[in-house]
């Protein structure tokens, strides 16, 4: 089910990006999209009987049945990159707000 949710979040994020002109809502939709992508990536490496990929004293050494650790490492990277882009996007949005007193791009129109 969570696999479906990941793809659904990606699609909902794209829908959000297409239907709004409000800067903050665009970034929110982008975050939903990124979240969906992250869930999707995690579910690529998921195996049913797998354990969290951490060696502990309880894990028998002859049967290391873990989920795929590589997608998790990728998502770790992607989350941080997403935060960086979000912070920068909001900073830019704030600059626009300072200039036009609104976050709505349809109000601002074409900036020439």
């Amino acid at each position, binding site marked *: 089910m969570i696999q479906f949710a990941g793809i659904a979040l990606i699609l909902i994020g794209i829908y959000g990006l297409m239907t709004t002109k409000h800067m903050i809502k665009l970034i929110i939709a982008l975050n939903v999209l990124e979240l969906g992508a992250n869930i*999707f990536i995690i579910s690529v490496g998921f195996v049913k009987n797998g354990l969290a990929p951490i060696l502990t004293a309880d894990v028998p050494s002859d049967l290391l049945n873990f989920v795929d650790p590589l997608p998790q490492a990728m998502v770790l990277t992607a989350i941080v990159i997403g935060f960086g*882009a979000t912070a*920068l*996007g909001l900073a*830019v949005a704030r600059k626009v707000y300072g200039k036009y007193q609104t976050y709505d791009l349809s109000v*601002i129109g074409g900036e020439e």
Partner: protein
Amino acid sequence: MWSPVWLIVLPLLMAFISVVIKKQQYLLLNLSILLNLAVLYLAPQGMVIIGGFRPPFGISLNFDRYAFISLLLIQVLMLFATFIAGPLAKKYGTVLLVLLAGINGMLLTNDLFNLFVMIEVVSIASFIISTSNGKFTHTFHYLILASVGGVFFLLGAVMVYAYTGTLVVQGLFATLGQLPNAISLIPMMLIILGLAVELKLMPVGSWAKNIYGNSNVLTGPIFAAVLAPAFGFVFGRMMGEVVVLNPITGYTLLFMAIATFVLGELAAYRQKDLLKTLAFSSIAQSGLAIILFTLNLPFAAILLLINNALAKSILFWVATGVSTAYETSSMKGLRGVFYNHRILGITFSIASLSLVGIPLFLGFYAKVTAVMAIFTTGLIWIPVVILATAIIEGAYMMKWLLQLWSPAKEGHLASTEEVPEKREALNMTQIVAVCLVALILFVFGLVPQRVGRVLSVASQAEISQVETVAEGGGQ
């Protein structure tokens, strides 16, 4: 010791240092570019492992002729760009250092996920550079599009991993080619869509006209002469090593690229604003490079990318310098401006003639090679479209050259009275730098075959893929 990893690490190290010694940012920037050129000269070519684990377990760098040529071009243009941008480059010194590290990483890396990370580094750095235009809504537009593109690229890379179990770029097409068409379709589309934003491909390249069209002396050359060829080379690498096209995706990509090319040139023709004209021209040229890479003609594409990078850098330097000095970039306001700036006018003319592809310039050789190469693929209508569009390009470039040189109104004799009052556009050292690049372009135009021989080695290194869209779909 002389490992190509220095090309990435050195600018990064300088960037981290430059945060605390802000005054020396500019020095560190130029120093690292010069050291990079030395590393480029000294480092032996071949695969370089990072982290001590061989691929596919670890990340590796692929430093071949193709990477060498692209890196050399980027370092040289970056050096000139920072030199001419002067005070602006000082303010954005750290950002430019990170940008340089990211571009070098992007061109060197041999790992699909690492490529995604490097693309993100480059795009975030380019967002920041584009804010120096002061048009924040444009930056925002670009930021959203590029971030979505990044997510698509990431999804494509992950799906490639899911299907093939590897992320190594080199020879990935062989593994992907064994998969059924229906399976490889989605990751390939995602990877191409991810790159399409930065490549300014038709529907998603709309950011470029605003960012380029309002550029200043820093952003114009950085975007048109450094970022555009860098992403062009990355796309070439992807087409050569990763992307497997079937007739449907291949023709879709081809039509999108042709539409970008033709509509871009038409839009450029209709512009009355110098920077906007150059913006649309850049979009169109990017489309042409994509056509060539899609048809698997890397040699012609590399020639075209180099010609465009050199020509566009000169055009943007002169155009932004002049339009900043005269506070306008419209055709009316700049009429006859080269009467005041003859040297700039000559370099601008050389660059635009080479861009259009007039004989005796590198652009001519590039365009002839491109057209001849496409003829060999059997798709006769594409060269016809390209030639027809080249006429449009020639027409508007000539129109601009005439207007910028001639102070006369239509139907009157030229007189110097209508020339705008002289203002300083670029200072002496900047003019010397622009002239140097123009000289490089000019000399390349004199010995195109020699340049071609050097580049053909690079294109052979890049291309290991045999199957092309032309062979697959043209029959």
